[in-house]
């Protein structure tokens, strides 16, 4: 009797052990937040993204089920080689499984290559380049939150349709800025509008008066800002100073974050129309998350869409790992699972991840409130319209991604 039980138990134990060994699954995960911690994009990603990732880990409930999940962070200093080096070291030495965030498209593209080489997972939330799901797509990369196509089509189409037919562009003389201008121009033309002119300014321009003057002279109805960060906020501030809006022209900020609006103040930023995929005050789900987030931030700032994207992408990643029964430490496999499962979180709602790695979820068109419309702190945006997930992002067959069957 005892011997039989012993054999059975041993046999069962051996079977379990061999099957576990064969599957090579374990319950340890390391997530690396590679972001700009100290420079231009620190406010839209940076330390906030690390907090968002940690919140996602806690909310996944996996730690209670015996998983060991660690979140580490590093500063890529906006340099592609620093970013790529950190990524490589993380995969080789620190057993990192997934890299998240990475604002700055140049760094993101470099990291994208390393992730593919090392068969890790890249959950890009901060970068803008649509190439990540286009010609540079990989089976290891998921692109969340936004890209230049979505921004161009969201903001561009809405504005042209509401009457803004003639445009003049202020473009950052950088690959990102040019891509944004190109995508938006295509939308404008497709909807019956016209681009009257454009001027390319160097990155980190402090004074836009000369360019604004040229924009005024063009008499275009809309002045499109194809830039980001300090360039956008300076252009908006100075446009206000030069009475651009008083003269009848409108500004279209193609990439604007809540951190930018907070830095400008409502008096200057009011009336701006732009697209994001997340706003803290959108619904009860986003509100609950954002209040928890802000409590943990040193500056008590509300989350930007990039930080929300980090939360959502990590949550979905952990959901995929749970579905697989453990962490196979095989990036392509996990991403494939992520693409099988539909996404659903309180921040972005329901969506899917397509074959090219693009996370598809609804986008929203906003207008910045005037100071009198704002009733409480961070009450900045007024919802103009919702763009359904099916229309928000570039169609699957237009990206040139080799993973997509044409």
């Amino acid at each position, binding site marked *: 009797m005892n011997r039989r039980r012993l054999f059975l138990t041993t046999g069962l134990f051996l079977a379990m052990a061999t099957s576990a060994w064969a599957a090579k699954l374990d319950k340890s995960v390391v997530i690396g937040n590679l972001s700009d*911690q*100290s420079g231009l994009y620190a406010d839209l990603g*940076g*330390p906030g993204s690390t907090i968002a990732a940690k919140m996602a880990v806690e909310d996944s409930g996996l730690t209670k089920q015996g998983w060991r999940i660690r979140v580490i962070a590093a500063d890529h200093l906006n340099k*592609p*080689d620093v970013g*790529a080096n950190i990524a490589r*070291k993380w995969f*080789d030495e620190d057993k990192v499984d997934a890299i998240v965030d990475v604002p700055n498209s140049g760094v993101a593209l470099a990291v994208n*290559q390393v992730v593919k080489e090392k068969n890790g997972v890249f959950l890009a939330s901060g970068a803008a380049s649509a190439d990540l799901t286009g010609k540079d797509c990989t089976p290891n990369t998921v692109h969340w939150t936004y890209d230049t196509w979505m921004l161009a089509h969201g903001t561009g189409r809405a504005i042209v349709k509401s009457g803004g037919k003639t445009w003049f562009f202020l473009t950052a003389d950088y690959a990102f800025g040019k891509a944004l201008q190109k995508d938006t121009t295509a939308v404008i033309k497709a909807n019956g509008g016209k681009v009257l002119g454009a001027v390319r300014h160097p990155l980190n321009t402090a004074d836009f008066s000369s360019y604004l003057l040229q924009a005024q002279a063009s008499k275009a109805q809309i002045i499109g800002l194809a830039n980001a960060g300090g360039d956008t906020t300076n252009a908006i501030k100075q446009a206000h100073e030069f009475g651009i809006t008083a003269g009848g022209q409108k500004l279209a900020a193609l990439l604007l974050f809540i951190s930018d609006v907070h830095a400008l103040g409502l008096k200057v930023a009011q009336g701006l129309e732009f697209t994001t995929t997340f706003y803290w005050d959108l619904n009860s789900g986003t509100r609950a998350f954002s209040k928890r987030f802000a409590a943990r931030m040193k500056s008590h700032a509300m989350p930007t869409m990039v930080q929300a994207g980090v939360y959502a992408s990590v949550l979905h990643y952990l959901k995929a790992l749970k579905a697989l029964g453990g962490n196979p430490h095989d990036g392509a496999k996990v991403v494939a699972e992520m693409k099988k499962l539909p996404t659903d979180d309180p921040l972005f709602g329901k969506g899917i991840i397509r074959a090219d790695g693009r996370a598809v979820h609804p986008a929203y068109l906003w207008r910045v409130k005037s100071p009198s419309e704002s009733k409480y702190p961070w009450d900045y945006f007024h919802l103009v319209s919702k763009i359904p997930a099916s229309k928000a992002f570039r169609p699957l067959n237009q990206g040139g991604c080799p993973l997509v069957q044409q």
Partner: protein
Amino acid sequence: MSPALGRAKPRLPRLANWSGGLGFALMALALAVLPLTNLVYPYFIMEALCFALFACAFNLLIGYAGLLSFGHAMFLGTGGYLCAQAATAWGLPAGLALSTGTAAAALLGLVVGLLSVRRQGIYFAMITLALAQMVYFFFLQAPFTHGEDGIQGVPQGLLFGLFDLSNQTTLYYATLVVFLAGFLFIVRVIDSPFGEVLKGVRENESRMISLGYKVDRYKLLAFVLSAALAGLAGALKAIVTQSASLTDAHWTTSGDVVLMTLVGGMGTIYGPVVGAFVIVAMQQYLAQFGQWVTVIQGLVFVACVLLFRRGIVGEVARWLRL
């Protein structure tokens, strides 16, 4: 090249402010053995080696010819971009790509040198800065660089058709060999009659002119050599990191190399190597402190200027002599 000095005889390289080839052998041995110990991530050492070569090239100019260049990143960037372009778009193997990068940087060095060597002190520095900014602008606008996305996916391939550089160990030792070769070349230059003339120019230029030396030609040659070696460093970095980007040609990189040389010890042979390792280590290992990296770098700068003016190597050498 130059008329040999009557008094100074060509001597064998003294290889530093320490005893003979011992210092060099120790350094070579330490670097050869380091990756095997698994103390440090090999890619960091490789990156540090590239910057060490860059710093040594810069030091040749400031430490031995007394010329402070604020625009040296233009050579690092040129070497990197041309090597990356040669390897990706023109399909050249690693050895030829490295040579292309080095040659391009040397050519640029010739042009820049011709324009700048007549100027002195801070004005020389400012002209090199101005020209470096123009080179940066060229790289920003030129389509082949893809702007801030940089040239990615540079193939490593085979070196001289024999060594497979995609193997990390082979890549490491190849990088080490290139670095050591560059280092030895610099030492040879410094301890040659040409080098003695340079040092004379640094100490007292008017005296050298009165002695009949065509001082501008010496300075120009030193400049071209420094530019070529900086280009080699850049080309090497492009192969190691498999990319070339705008930050390589940015003026803050020129500042980095000044920092490395200062921290390590200006005018010493090993100083730039030590300085490069220290600064690269700081950037990589402090990355986890995120926002405090710039503050710590600034503190290091200030401390070095106030307390360790001779740099690490200089202070250690002085201490050992006591």
